[in-house]
């Protein structure tokens, strides 16, 4: 197998680099492009190959069953799929207004000298190690949310600090900067005449902002989808606060749950002990990859249509 791996990953890279440096630059660069495509294709092929045993045994039932019983070799990733969708929905609905707020504040409200500083701060939020968010989620955000929910909905509404809601809110904090960066980029590119035309109609600042936001709606949608992809794939921070309830569907937002990526992170160390569990986890990863690609395609379609 080594020969195969070398032939697919290492030799093409070296050949492309050689062509780039010593032969013809254009062909070397093209070879790099082919290399990247082959690597991505290999990645997806590898997932299919590793997930194949369980897909062959159960077909698509592995995605629609909620049983997780390693002793009987029965695996279903439906709770994880539901958990992924619920946490990302919570994250996006909170992150959307925050990201717009950040973009508008940086470009309209702050004095110009402070803008780069504030923008770097937001970029820093995106660079921060995700495990630190997990730490913060366990010891600061989780207890806070639990006491807040229990104060509003009565004691016992949220029995544990580990819940889908905690994961969703934590994700919202983490993905806001990605959306904000894209929206800000579009916001800064609104043509000056558009802005002047709106002001000349006697619009207030808020109305101008709203018109400008509507003008750049493809950037807004692009930012939201980028953040959505991030929220779906995020692993360790979510795994630390989501509760890890993987045998049944979550009862609600305040209940513990699991997402696909945290299922993989939490269960993979045990997987070698069972015959089909590795395959089941790879099937989950495959579903995650397909979801991610579908979201990308949807975003591209919407942006193209509005251009």
């Amino acid at each position: 197998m080594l020969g195969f791996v070398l032939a697919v990953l290492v030799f093409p890279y070296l050949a492309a680099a050689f062509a780039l440096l010593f032969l013809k630059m254009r062909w070397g660069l093209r070879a790099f492009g082919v290399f990247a495509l082959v690597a991505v294709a290999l990645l997806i092929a590898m997932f299919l190959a590793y997930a194949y045993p369980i897909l062959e045994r159960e077909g698509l039932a592995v995605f629609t069953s909620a049983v997780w019983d390693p002793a009987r070799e029965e695996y279903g990733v439906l709770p994880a799929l539901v958990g992924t969708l619920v946490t990302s929905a919570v994250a996006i609905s909170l992150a959307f207004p925050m990201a717009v707020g950040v973009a508008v504040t940086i470009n309209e409200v702050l004095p110009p000298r402070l803008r780069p500083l504030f923008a770097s701060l937001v970029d820093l939020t995106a660079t921060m190690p995700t495990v630190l968010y997990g730490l913060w989620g366990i010891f600061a955000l989780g207890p806070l949310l639990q006491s807040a929910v229990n104060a509003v909905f009565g004691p016992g509404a949220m029995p544990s600090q580990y819940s889908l809601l905690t994961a969703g809110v934590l994700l919202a904090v983490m993905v806001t900067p990605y959306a904000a960066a894209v929206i800000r980029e579009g916001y800064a590119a609104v043509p000056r005449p558009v802005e002047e035309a709106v002001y000349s109609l006697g619009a207030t600042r808020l109305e101008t902002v709203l018109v400008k936001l509507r003008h750049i709606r493809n950037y807004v949608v692009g930012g939201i989808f980028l953040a959505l992809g991030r929220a779906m794939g995020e692993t360790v921070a979510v795994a630390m606060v989501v509760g890890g309830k993987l045998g049944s569907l979550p009862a609600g937002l305040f209940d513990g749950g699991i997402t696909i990526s945290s299922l993989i992170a939490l269960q993979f160390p045990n997987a070698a002990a069972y015959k089909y569990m590795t395959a089941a986890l790879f099937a989950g990863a495959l579903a995650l990859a397909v979801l991610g690609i579908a979201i990308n395609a949807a975003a591209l379609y919407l942006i193209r249509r509005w251009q």
Partner: protein
Amino acid sequence: MRLRRALDKLGMALFVALAALAVAPLFWLIVDVYVKGAAAIAKLGGLWTFLLCPPPTPFDKEGGVGPMLVGTLYMTALGALAGFAVGFPLGVYIGEMGRERLAQVTRAGVNILVEFPTVAVGLFVYAVMSLAVDDLNRYLSKLPGGWFLGPLEGFNAYAGAAALAIVMIPYVALATASAYASVERPLREAAYGVGGREFNAVFIVLRKVVSRAVLTAALIGTAKAAGETAPLLFTAFGNTYYGPFTGPTGAVSLWIWYAAQSPYEVQILSAYGAAAVLLTIVLVIFILARVWR
């Protein structure tokens, strides 16, 4: 008219409040990590003990992140080099020759990679490693091994570095592409005019224009790689002792992930200390990238 004025003020205030809400957790997190982290480091035996010693077992009073720090630095350095070596030419291709069909397909591939969950990248490297490691060892066992080469185990620092490199490639590629795409046309023509070979024009003359943007991207990517946890779970696996890089290797982020979930007070303390160390590494690289620009 007065209503509109009031609505205007209210709406703008709402936007600012939302922005404050988005940034507040950042400050909370940094203060939280440094305050608790400094206290934890003092309690666990001072800075040098913390930076050099292995982590505390539940029955220890002192300990640190020494082995993990070494692992993080080694894997991040290797991963950053490899990630840059692949990401940079890829970015040049997408940015310089973006018109042709193949380049557009490549850009789509890179976009898939940038959205790919990092844990799935870890799974991919795990799968490749489990296929290749036995064959690889047949060649490596003939070489003098020691800490660095030797026969590899299933989990090792090189798998971890490969996973970090894959995480970093799309960042570098996309930033390089946008830097090259934003070079103005007259400048490009001048570069081709004096460059002689095309290679010289693109890599030597245009380099002066884009080098800052590319280096910033590389540094930000390195900072991101230094903090990654998920791709290391099944590739480096984690270790709490000084051990050769050919076997399971610890990383500071992996230790935080493990220790924060442990029930022992002393390990939670060390998680906060480790968080302060990791945050310092990332902040230093980040500030370096900003100052450079």
